[in-house]
């Protein structure tokens, strides 16, 4: 694998790794080759032919984007003939391209504009008959075929990175266009990556279109605040309007060359808190805090806020409630007790590079799109075999997964035991561990979990050639009664095989909070101050709070992503009010700014003593991620032992699964303007029959101690007796297992 190919580009000696193309080597060595359709994160589109180079001893030109070099070859990237070739390509691109740069959204950051000027195309030598091509509206996306240059970047990204495979090229020579694949109207997850990669103004955000120009917007580099993938993004701000000089976010962009962003990050940016400063509320908050017995908070906060809460706990002797982070923390503690490491070993990058992946306990396409895109990338680029184990099949993962392993809801512990048993067959286990696997009643586990021996054998067969494997565990298992044992089994797999492990934190900063705050078991007591959570006095960045605080796009701070990476957040929109730090100052936890805590974060958990202002937040031109820092590895005591498998629970009747529709994650995505809010309970025909309800009916769902009203929607793509219940618009206790037995009645 390590064999290097030596060759020269423009007389410069360079080296190529196996599989690298001439263009990749040239870019890595800062040699410029112009391209129109090339995008680093996909396979070459090879539609523009701008990247042609001359290779010594080869007739004609060579496409540098998809040609690997041979030993000793001499490449010329620029001479008179190549210049003519490229100039002609540019002239052809400009044929009938509407001269509406004045109104085009892309003007100022347009590849075609840049290249036209670069090649000095000042006149038109070619012509063809103008066609009538009306603008199409695809929901959040507008497509103008007249502007489209058919570079095919959008289709490549949609298929190879996102996995929606929703758009396609309709071939027809000069009348080629991009069309929704096998459909009249675009039906996709609306990640908007096609908008991001479009080099011209053909694909644009319909909400943003004609609102502002590229040069008017200030860029604020930050991190997406919706899920734990920690995607890098840039908020682009400008004065709201002529009458309102305060800045607001106009759009979100990402470094599409190397990273991806889902629709929630791209279109769900307006979750800032616009409440005004209220001193009376602040005085009340001070009283409430000094009388509080506990603070209940959510994981949608920064590390610095979590640290402040921890200091408040120490100072005031109160309790901290956060079931979401507490469950994650105890899951990871159990993992550490076997693996000897505090943090899981995998990352999104490890997933992208992997060739064998098991994912269990997560409806990943909606839980964490970042992981989904990594899975798609692995599947399309590395040919990764992906085993998707879950009680409910997901259409969005259909193109990505190799094998669907359906198990019964609640049987995750059994499934993990079966997986471990299969994967650790030849491992060098200790006496005790061997005894655990010897004691397993495989017949019972297979029968109850519904995962057959043949499925496990098939998985082993799929993984036969895999060398880099990843096990991904989702948030279903955190609230499982045997979560600790599941974590230990996962740690075993990681320890004894080549698997690395990724545990998907359920909220944006669940991981950070779990490392910083010492959490107590939530009790239903009075005098609880809610911090972005329920309580007798609510301090929140959402509406209807007793004291308003800034949302995550209005404050500086850090969050910890799924990659164990500490990522900085920046202020995109100003906030005129009080913060937790102001409140803490009054009870003796004094620091001038919240970010003064960044360097004081818990070093025992791997945080580094770095100032917030010293944290970088960008990707360099080679695509290297230079954002924040990765948590230091921390070793732990290995004292955990596997416990015998408890009898697997059974979920019969009408079971609901807490799962959000695409692009919705929490109360913050719920208040954004552009994201669709589908609050229906979605179930299969089988579920409808079991619950005795039909499509479009208003129903009342009771689970645990809560009762909510929903409309039932029959989803033909779903199977089985589990229905999907969204949680972004309601308050669901994180301590509850995501699958719940429910009682459904028709509401009158």
């Amino acid at each position: 694998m390590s064999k290097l190919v030596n060759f020269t580009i423009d007389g410069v000696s360079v080296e190529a790794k196996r599989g690298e193309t001439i263009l990749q080597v040239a870019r890595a060595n800062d040699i410029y080759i112009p391209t129109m359709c090339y995008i680093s994160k996909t396979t070459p589109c090879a539609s523009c032919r701008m990247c042609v180079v001359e290779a010594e001893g080869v007739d004609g030109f060579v496409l540098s984007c998809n040609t690997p070099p041979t030993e000793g070859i001499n490449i010329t990237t620029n001479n008179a003939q190549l210049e003519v070739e490229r100039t002609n390509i540019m002239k052809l691109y400009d044929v009938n391209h509407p001269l509406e740069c004045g109104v085009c959204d892309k003007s100022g950051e347009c590849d075609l504009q840049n290249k036209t000027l670069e090649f000095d195309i000042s006149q038109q030598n070619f012509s063809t008959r103008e066609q009538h091509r009306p603008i199409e509206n695809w929901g959040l996306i507008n497509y103008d075929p007249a502007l489209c240059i058919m570079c095919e970047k959008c289709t490549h990204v949609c298929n190879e990175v996102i996995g929606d495979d929703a758009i396609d090229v309709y071939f027809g020579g000069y009348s080629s266009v991009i069309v929704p694949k096998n459909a009249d109207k675009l039906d996709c997850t609306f990640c908007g990556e096609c908008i991001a990669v479009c080099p011209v103004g053909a694909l644009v955000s319909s909400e943003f279109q004609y609102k502002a120009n590229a040069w008017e917007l200030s860029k604020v580099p930050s991190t997406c605040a919706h899920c734990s993938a920690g995607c890098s993004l840039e908020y682009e701000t400008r004065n709201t309007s002529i009458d309102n000089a305060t800045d607001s976010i106009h759009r979100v962009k990402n470094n599409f060359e190397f990273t991806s962003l889902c629709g929630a990050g791209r279109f769900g940016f307006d979750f800032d808190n616009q409440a005004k400063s209220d001193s009376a509320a602040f005085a009340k908050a001070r009283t409430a805090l000094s009388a509080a017995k506990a603070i209940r908070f959510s994981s949608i906060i920064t590390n610095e806020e979590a640290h402040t809460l921890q200091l408040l706990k120490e100072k005031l002797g109160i309790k901290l409630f956060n079931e979401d982070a507490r469950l994650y923390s105890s899951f990871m503690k159990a993992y550490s007790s076997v693996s000897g490491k505090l943090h899981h070993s995998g990352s999104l990058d490890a997933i992208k590079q992997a060739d064998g992946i098991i994912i269990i306990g997560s409806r990943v396409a909606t839980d964490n799109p970042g992981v989904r895109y990594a899975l798609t990338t692995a599947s399309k680029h590395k040919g990764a075999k992906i085993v998707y184990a879950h009680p409910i099949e997901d259409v969005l993962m259909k193109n990505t997964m190799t094998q669907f392993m359906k198990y019964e809801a609640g049987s995750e512990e059994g499934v993990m035991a079966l997986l471990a048993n299969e994967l650790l067959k030849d491992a060098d286990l200790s006496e005790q561990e061997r005894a655990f696997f010897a004691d397993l009643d495989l017949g019972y586990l297979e029968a109850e979990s519904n995962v057959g021996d043949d499925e496990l054998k098939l998985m082993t067969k799929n993984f036969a050639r895999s060398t880099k494997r990843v096990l991904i565990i989702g948030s279903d298992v955190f609230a499982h009664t045997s979560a600790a044992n599941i974590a230990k089994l996962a740690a075993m797999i990681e320890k004894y095989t080549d698997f690395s492990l990724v545990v998907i934190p359920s909220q944006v900063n669940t991981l950070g909070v779990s490392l910083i705050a010492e959490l107590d078991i939530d009790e239903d007591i009075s005098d609880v101050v809610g911090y972005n959570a329920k309580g007798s006095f609510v301090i929140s960045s959402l509406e209807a709070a007793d004291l308003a605080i800034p949302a995550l796009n209005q404050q500086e701070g850090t969050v910890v992503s799924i990659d164990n990476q500490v990522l900085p957040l920046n202020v995109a929109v100003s906030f005129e009010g009080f913060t937790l730090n102001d409140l803490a100052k009054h009870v003796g936890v004094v620091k001038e700014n919240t970010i003064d805590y960044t360097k004081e974060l818990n070093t025992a958990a791997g945080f580094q003593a770095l100032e917030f202002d010293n944290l970088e937040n960008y990707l360099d031109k080679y695509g290297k991620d230079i954002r924040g820092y990765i948590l230091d590895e921390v070793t732990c005591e290995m004292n955990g032992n596997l416990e015998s498998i408890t009898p697997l629970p059974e979920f019969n009747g009408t079971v609901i699964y807490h799962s959000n529709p695409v692009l919705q994650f929490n109360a913050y995505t719920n208040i954004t303007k552009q994201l669709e809010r589908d609050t229906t309970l979605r179930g299969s025909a089988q579920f409808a029959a079991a619950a005795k309800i039909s499509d479009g009916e208003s129903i009342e769902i009771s689970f645990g101690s809560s009762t909510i009203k929903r409309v039932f929607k029959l989803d033909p793509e779903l199977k089985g007796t589990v229905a999907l219940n969204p949680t972004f618009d309601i308050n669901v206790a994180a301590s509850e297992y995501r699958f719940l037995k429910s009682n459904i009645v028709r509401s009158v």
Partner: protein
Amino acid sequence: MEQFNNRNVADNGYFMVDIEDYPTDGMGKFKRIIKRTFRLELFVGLWVVMREMIKFDIHTISYPAEKMPIGPRYRAVHEMKRLWESDAERCIGCGLCEKICISDCIRMDTKIDEDSRKEVSEYTINLGRCIFCGYCAEVCPELAITHGGEYEQASEQREHFVDYEYMLTPIDTMKANAQKEFEGFGSITPHEDERVKKTPLAY
């Protein structure tokens, strides 16, 4: 035109004015004061006024009732032009005037209209900040924003000077074919048509 190109001042009847040197010493200054006081120079000036008054040879105009004609290139309060073909507003909302404005006094809000075209929903120029440099008129690709001859900066309404409607050519003027094209900075140079290269249409 010829006479303006001739830079030899002697040919145009120019001559040096014979001005006495200023006194430098105290005595000289004293003599000057005495001379000026008793020569009654004031009445020389008054006599000129009196003479012109009697002759009724009036050189002033009664501003504001009368106004001097203003040059076509004068850069006073902006105007927004309409298209000759359709009477529609020329401004396409490209934002270049907003970008180029060095005193940062132009702002616009744009949006997509029902016909999927870019529409300027709000447009203001803060004339209190404007330095009348003419960059906006120069950069405008549509010759939409230009300068006009309206140099008086006083009005009962502050809005008069920042309102898009106020700057826009009134539709009645347009219907009467009375819109004046700006000839100054940013306008089309003469013989522009001859310089345009046409796209081949040989398909």
